[in-house]
């Protein structure tokens, strides 16, 4: 099979897997065996991908040195997010100072939103595991 065809098949299979698990997650209720199972399955798939995916060997000479990339805006955002989450958690009550968890609870009253969030979480894991 050609590389392109193989990539299309892999992409289709991955998309179907993410879609299927997201649909299952959307239909599951928290604190049930189904919710545990679909989350555990998602974690297992990504960890297996991370464990067995081979890193491609770079071909040719090393690229020319470039000026270093700026990463500090990400650090600032991460600190701001964690700080506001902690502040909201300790300030209370949740109605006035919602945490990410309470925002998530509000949004996932719609099952479709839960499915989309699950698919996003799984895709993030796949992106991290991809080498």
């Amino acid at each position, binding site marked *: 099979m050609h590389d392109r065809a193989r990539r299309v098949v892999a992409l289709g299979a991955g998309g179907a897997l993410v879609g299927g698990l997201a649909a299952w997650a959307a239909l599951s209720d928290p604190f049930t065996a189904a*919710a545990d199972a679909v989350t555990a399955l998602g974690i297992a798939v990504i960890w297996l991908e991370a464990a067995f995916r081979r890193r491609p060997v770079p071909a040719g000479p090393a690229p020319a040195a470039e000026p270093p990339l700026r990463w500090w805006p*990400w650090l600032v*955002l991460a600190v701001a997010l964690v700080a*506001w989450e902690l502040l909201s958690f300790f300030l209370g009550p949740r109605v006035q*100072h919602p945490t990410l968890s309470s925002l998530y609870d509000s949004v996932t009253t719609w099952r479709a939103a839960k499915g989309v969030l699950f698919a996003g979480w799984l895709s*993030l894991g796949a992106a*991290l595991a991809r080498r």
Partner: protein
Amino acid sequence: MSAEAVSDALWALLGAAVLGTALATHRRGSRLARLSVLARRLEAQGAAFVLVLLGWAWLGWHFFAR
């Protein structure tokens, strides 16, 4: 302005900042590190990459299984 409105506005602002930063990294000639670049750096550290994967798994368990 109520505390709830301020809180919601701040969450929306932080969300927009994350999205805006992620989009800015994809601009041609941007010197801002993409999240994928940060992930590769972490991956190269070995133990840090395992911690990132554990953190990702905890996030999923916290939100979807709890």
